């Protein structure tokens, strides 16, 4: 699903944020991306979103070489990738419902279809009762849930989360991670960047360790990793199962037009 070959990223100020990174994440895999501050975790996620272009090397997503992706195709790539930002990036003037709906509006869906999907997802996240609230009136955990809902609402093949637990207390952090692992179990490829080692240890999922832009270690998933025992009971899992058009194991086709008329 995601392949990096000798990827190098040097920012215009000369900082080498990624150095010769080669890695591969399979479809449906759940991967932690760790390393100290400044290691290049966010940079890697930004490259996948094409918020930045790699200086060198190749990046393939769903078989598409995004290193040579035309600007006009970037929006269509992004519709396949949900991203959760550390600072949530919710729009304060818009309600919870509207914040989530944005990801569907931009695809040109009608109000009925948008309502159906947003309601279903907010239900699954136990956020429906807050649908008409504004982000400023929510707790940090609730805001993070809305941010995740926005990333998931158009059923992307890939979910990227940058420090999703960074602003949360440990208990809430655990909740959110559990949620992301559930998403992964539904067939979505999930990449979670975090410098919280304790958290990573706890779940025993595959972990990529970055340091000064280099890939230092690729720890495979441990046998008996703590995969949620709640599957089937978790309302989110149910919501996602119902809304997902493809079965968890079916190959995920990226929906990026070959030629985009600007």
């Amino acid at each position, binding site marked *: 699903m995601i392949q990096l070959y000798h990827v190098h990223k040097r920012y215009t100020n000369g900082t080498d944020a990624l150095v010769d990174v080669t890695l591969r994440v399979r479809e449906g895999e759940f991967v932690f991306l760790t390393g100290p501050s400044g290691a290049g975790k966010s940079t890697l996620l930004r490259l996948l979103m094409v918020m930045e272009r790699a200086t060198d090397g190749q990046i393939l997503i769903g078989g598409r070489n995004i290193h040579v992706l035309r600007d006009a195709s970037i*929006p269509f790539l*992004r519709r396949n990738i*949900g991203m959760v930002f550390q600072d949530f990036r919710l729009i304060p003037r818009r309600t919870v419902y509207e914040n989530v709906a*944005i990801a569907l509006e*931009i695809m*040109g869906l009608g109000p009925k279809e948008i309502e159906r999907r947003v309601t279903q997802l907010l239900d699954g996240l136990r956020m429906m009762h807050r649908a008409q609230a504004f982000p400023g009136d929510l707790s940090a955990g609730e805001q993070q849930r809305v941010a995740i809902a926005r990333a998931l609402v158009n059923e992307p093949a890939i979910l990227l989360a940058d420090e999703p637990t960074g602003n949360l207390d440990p208990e809430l952090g655990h909740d959110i991670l559990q949620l992301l692992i559930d998403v992964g179990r539904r067939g979505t490829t999930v990449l979670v960047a975090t410098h919280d080692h304790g958290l990573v240890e706890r779940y025993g999922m595959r972990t990529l360790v970055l340091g000064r832009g280099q890939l230092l270690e690729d720890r495979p998933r441990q046998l008996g990793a703590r995969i949620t025992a709640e599957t089937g009971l978790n309302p989110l899992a149910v919501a996602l199962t119902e809304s997902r058009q493809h079965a968890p194991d079916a190959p995920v086709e990226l929906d990026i037009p070959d030629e985009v*008329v600007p």
Partner: protein
Amino acid sequence: MKHGARPDYVLRQAWLLLRGSPWLAGVSALTIALALTLVGLFASVMFNAGHLMHELGQSLTLSVYLHDTASAEEVTAVRQKLEAHAGIKKVRALTREQDRDRNKRLLSPELLQGLDEASIPGQPVLEVDIDAELASRGDVDALVKWTGALRGVQSVEDVEFGAEKLRLLFAMVEIARTIGIVLSGVLLASAMFFVFSTVRLAVFSRRDEIEIQTLVGATPGFVRLPFLVEGALQGLAGAAIAATLLGLLHLELRGLVRDVYMLNVSWSLLPPGMIAWLVIGGPAVGLAASALSVGRYLKV
């Protein structure tokens, strides 16, 4: 522009953007209205002036006064000379008595009573009708020069050219046209500046939203469209106000023309063609200004 946006979505967003800065949007619409009203006014004044000049052109005449002593042959010679010239439609010869009769009619009866018949001026004259085409083509100058040369002919005493006044009118209309164009241009420029500012403000106030839309996969066209429509809507509002103003002005002036000048002429400050121009022109101005603003401030 490929954008995939639904019209209802775009309109709603554009409306929300307008509501974000209602005062500035109002000023923009009013300035556009003012500019369009002025353009409309000048357009119809120019149109009516054109009419007027055409009509005046119909009665464009030239009077060639001959000496009392001019013989019949000499009169015929001058007459033939005139008739041979291009742009001259008709030549009528008046004897001294006919000219005196004509002049008598111009004087008031009281004045005539104490007047000796012989003291009323009268002179043999050739009345020349000039082709109106010539006047509207602005070729009058050449004719004036040519007829001026007639003064050198022995039997000709003087040449009076009725078109002098017409030329003045032409000049005045020309000046009015220039002022109108400049003034309308200035107003249109300020209108565009206001729309430009309104849209810039809207873009700045939506920075976060624009960024998020881009990150979840909105095409640049999708992001830009509501801002462009916001500008076009201001133009449309301006056009509607301008149409109302012109309509009211028309009613007001029509009453004036009918009651004060007792004229029953058919004219309109707001003909259907003008409405069409406003409906196209207003939004076009707004769209152009917002496109400039979006191009400058909305980087996606």
